[in-house]
């Protein structure tokens, strides 16, 4: 096995191991919230589980997957060795050590603060140090991606950077911007509190800093799915990408508009004024533009493929597509979940509508459909797609892969559609147990059991996914094949400098961040800001 394959597989296996464990936690949480008697239910266990599930899914699965997939993309799309492989391994080791530290803190019950931290709750310092190491590991990845692209550009002056790599670097640049908020929160407020150096924290400031990170981090997770839509799905369908330029534009707009919008997570918070919330709501509307561009471009690409395969008429190209291929199937299922999840998201981002569903199961349903559904199903499809070039072995059963994808889709829909309904009725999230004997909420019980069934389908699907990957081992080794990303209908020969680098977009991001977050953060240092007492969860309150 060559070093790139070893590096990529190491990252992906850590990601998927964390994913599988987290699925058990998630299913148990649904059971605990349902009217059915679940084992081990105490509030302590519940919040430990929510923390473990959130950290594994949101930080470990995503970060390791994105790093591994990024290294793979850098070498295959640029067709040259990845620079600084030793650094890449250092990043992996740091992130792995950090993951193990955070895991130990969580499982010992000293870090039940959820993955979003919620100061003034304060966990064991080991938890925060662990997460800092994961982020440092990801920063190394960012630098390596940027260096890889710069070296390639120097060697190919004027040539357009391959779309897959351009998108990967867009994600790396965005991640560097994204982590500024949470890094400031952890290093200057949460860690000092955890170490006992300060007794009070400014909750308004910490929540504002976390909101800086909280929206673009979701786009960090989403990028691989979009990269697969643009550079893998058209190829898998037997067609070509409709437009390379629209792809670049979408990735650039994601970088630009995912950052200055995090305050839509704070609509109900008192520390920010209505004016800045309104401005960020307006900017949030723009985030839908790259997604709509993507839906258009990918649908057009699929139509090209369907017509090449003999599809006729207005919709005849749809059944003509090769749905038996996991990448095509996953793209279709992902779009369906994107439709429902995106619709829910439009409600979340409306300043007025948000008040209806704030902190209810609706929000949980939204991010499970978008991230757990539309994005993670593409992680599966990417893994299936690149496992052959990585291992030199072909899949033992495409049917098992399709069953796994369908199970995931059905499980996610069955689990999250009732959550939307329950959220509208006011079922709150982040609560361990419900008193179903109370007539006001008794009618929720059956719907929670339906979501538990969805959760069980997801668990079966997750285990089948691991089994599918492991079963590659049972096939004979053929050869390490090179991997090809999708080609555009009109492959670009020259693109504007603005769409071949990130200088312009970094300047605009800086402008937008100063406009959106300048005063909202500065106010905590200018005006008198109330402090809250640190509440330690690692020392019995």
């Amino acid at each position, binding site marked *: 096995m060559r070093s790139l394959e070893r590096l990529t597989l190491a990252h992906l296996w850590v990601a998927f191991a964390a994913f599988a464990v987290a699925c058990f936690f998630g299913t148990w949480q649904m059971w605990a919230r349902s009217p059915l008697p679940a084992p081990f*239910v*105490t*509030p*302590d266990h519940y*919040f430990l589980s929510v923390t473990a599930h959130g950290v594994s899914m949101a930080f470990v699965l995503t970060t390791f997957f994105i790093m591994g997939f990024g290294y793979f993309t850098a070498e295959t799309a640029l067709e040259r060795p990845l620079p600084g492989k030793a650094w890449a391994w250092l990043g992996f080791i740091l992130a792995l050590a950090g993951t193990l530290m955070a895991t130990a803190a969580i499982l010992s*019950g*000293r870090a*039940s603060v959820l993955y979003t931290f919620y100061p003034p709750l304060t966990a064991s310092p080991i938890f925060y140090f662990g997460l800092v190491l994961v982020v440092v590991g990801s920063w190394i990845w960012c630098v390596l991606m940027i260096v890889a692209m710069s070296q390639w550009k120097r060697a190919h002056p004027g040539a357009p950077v391959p779309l897959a790599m351009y998108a990967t670097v867009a994600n790396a640049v965005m991640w560097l911007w994204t982590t500024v908020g949470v890094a400031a929160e952890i290093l200057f407020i949460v860690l000092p509190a955890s170490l006992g150096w300060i*007794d*009070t924290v400014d909750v308004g400031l910490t929540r504002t800093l976390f909101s800086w990170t909280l929206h673009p981090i979701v786009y960090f997770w989403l990028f691989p799915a979009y990269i697969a839509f643009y550079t893998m799905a058209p190829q898998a369908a037997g067609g070509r990408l409709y437009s390379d330029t629209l792809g670049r534009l979408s990735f650039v707009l994601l970088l*630009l508009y995912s950052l200055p919008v995090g305050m839509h997570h704070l609509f109900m918070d008192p520390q*920010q*004024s*209505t*004016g*800045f919330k*309104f*401005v960020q709501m*307006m*900017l949030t509307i*723009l985030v839908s533009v790259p997604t709509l561009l993507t839906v258009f471009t990918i649908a057009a690409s699929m139509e090209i493929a369907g017509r090449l395969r003999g599809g006729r008429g207005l919709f005849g190209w749809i059944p003509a597509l090769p749905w038996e291929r996991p990448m095509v199937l996953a793209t279709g299922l992902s779009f369906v979940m994107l439709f429902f999840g995106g619709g829910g998201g439009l409600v979340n981002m409306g300043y007025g509508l948000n008040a209806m569903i704030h902190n209810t199961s609706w929000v949980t349903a939204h991010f499970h459909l978008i991230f757990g559904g539309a994005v993670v199903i593409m992680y599966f499809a990417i893994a299936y797609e690149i496992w052959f070039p990585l291992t030199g072995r072909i899949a033992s059963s495409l049917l098992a892969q399709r069953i796994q994808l369908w199970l995931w889709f059905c499980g996610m829909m069955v689990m999250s559609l009732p959550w939307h309904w329950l959220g509208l009725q006011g079922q709150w999230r982040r609560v361990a*147990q*419900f*008193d*179903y*004997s*109370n007539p006001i909420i008794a009618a929720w019980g059956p719907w929670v059991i339906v979501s538990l069934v969805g959760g069980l389908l997801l668990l079966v699907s997750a285990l089948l996914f691991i089994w599918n990957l492991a079963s590659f081992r049972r096939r004979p080794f053929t050869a390490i094949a090179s991997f090809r990303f999708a080609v555009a209908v009109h492959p670009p020969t020259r693109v*504007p*400098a*603005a*769409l071949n*680098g*990130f*200088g*312009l977009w970094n*300047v*605009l991001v800086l*402008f*937008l961040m100063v*406009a959106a977050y300048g*005063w*909202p953060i500065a*106010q905590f240092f200018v005006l008198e800001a109330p*402090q809250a*007492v640190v*509440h330690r*969860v*690692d*020392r*019995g*309150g």
Partner: protein
Amino acid sequence: MAPQPHAADRQWWVWSTAIVVSFVVIAALLAFVVLRIGQGQSAGLSAFAAICRSLGLQAGSPAARQPSSESKAQPVSMVAWTPQVIDRLHHPNVKNGAEIAANICASCHGENGVSPNPQFPHMSGQSAFAIYKQLHDFKNGARVNEIMGSIVENLDDEQMADVAAHFSALTKGALDPRTISSGDPDVVRLVEYGISGRGIPGCASCHGAHAGGPIETPTLAGQRQEYLLAQLTAFASGDRHNDIYNRMRGIATKLRKDEIEKLAEYYAAVRLFRPQD
């Protein structure tokens, strides 16, 4: 990366910047001026006040006048966890605290905070926050007790913090669920889970180790049985009412008499987790 000299690339800079800046300007005009003046007018606010509120320079919503009430709020407790109080509890005058404890408190609560009389609670095992909260409430009349009321009358905030910190430093601990090996299963269930059908949360959700209760939540493990019984009964009848948000009164009124007795017995018997022992 510097802007490219090509005319086409310069166009990208010009147009992208123009679009982004215009959008922000339009959003800001709507957010801080246009909408606010309209909202302020209907709420009876001046345009200036509405704009200041939308910027966060003045408190309040630009869409509501926020009527002020003439009646004075009457908090159940006057304790405020200000950084000054917290700092004093963490860095007390040790000598001062020990002196007050020996001269005033020890006769009823014991020299080491272990009370010789079943009517008086142990101080041992309580946090400084828990003790300070009760002393402060006695002093302000939020909690009424003849003996304690007259004793704390002459103590100032710093002295109360010193003596609270003194007792909390003697032993540290909280109910450790691992020490529960036996006991009436109904009571254990009440402590761990509560009774959701009657709207009673588990005691351990606030009073347990690693629990999420407020900072002043007292430790119950190992406390005097008679004292616990008296307090739960007083919360149930409303005679004691210094619990913020009605928390303990709400719970105690839902408990049956026999459950109160069993809980007092349970907590008095449970072992305290004392790492310093």
